[in-house]
């Protein structure tokens, strides 16, 4: 599964100017693990500080978009600040091997697991040979 690295079309208005209000202008790229099983691809994404309701996963024109809205405020009167959080954003190009209708996702402890089942035709089929 290839990462979509081209500029997000949404984020670049036709005028060439970037709008400050577009959330994709300032975002973080979450680290992912992707592995394959016999029937599916699993995408595991670290989204710390994102509540279940803040996760937005969509597939459009074979592009899987993962967005996470940060719901985190650092403590007031910081005496040590080591991290900041921005909204998460990452895209992947899907192949036609994935059955896009059956994608499921689950969120736990700030980690999102997306399961992309392989399409029927992509799964190896055993052809029985009749002996006649």
């Amino acid at each position, binding site marked *: *599964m290839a990462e979509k690295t081209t500029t997000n079309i949404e984020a670049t208005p036709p005028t060439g100017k970037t709008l400050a209000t577009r959330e994709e202008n*300032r975002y*973080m*790229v*979450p*680290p*992912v*693990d*992707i*592995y*394959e*099983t016999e029937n599916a*691809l699993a995408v*595991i994404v*670290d*989204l*710390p*500080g*994102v*509540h279940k309701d803040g996760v937005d996963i969509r597939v459009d024109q074979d592009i899987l978009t993962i967005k996470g809205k940060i*719901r*985190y405020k*650092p*403590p*007031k*009167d*910081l*005496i*040590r*600040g*080591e*991290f*900041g*959080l*921005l909204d998460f954003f990452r895209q992947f190009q899907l192949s036609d091997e994935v059955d896009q209708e059956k994608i499921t996702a689950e969120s736990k*402890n*700030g*980690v999102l697991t997306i399961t992309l089942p392989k399409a029927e035709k992509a799964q190896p089929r055993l052809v029985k040979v009749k002996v006649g």
Partner: protein
Amino acid sequence: MGTWSLDFISDMEKMRREMDRFLGEFGSSNWTFPFSKTSFLPGRGAREYPLLNIGEDNDNFYIDALAPGVDPRTLDVSVTQNQLVISGEKTALLSTVESKAIHRSERSAGQFARSMTLPFDVNSEKVQATYQDGLLKIILPKAEVAKPKQIQVSVT
């Protein structure tokens, strides 16, 4: 991690602090911001894990630790006077998967421990810790002696 003595951890912490001072990082309240996309991963570079934001008011310290994907059962917060140790294990989901089936592996995993010295003693009996959405939030009430005192000035 469990077999380490606290002495060992505090020795390591002392050494780390010296290194930090050498590098001019100690006491810096600058935000490491914006940070790279892998900056909260364990095992990447010599970075400490988990990263912490620490705030305080008159009564409490507030510590937030960035630690997604940690099994809450392995999370351990221990406080003695002004020493805080956070330890746990980020679950390695890929350990059960054959390596040839892995397309990407960017999320590091493994055990971690971080200790730090707070500027004041805390009341270790009343420390609260919650883990939600990959963030560990700890509230440490300051010990009575460490709280600022208001002194009434009497006008005669």
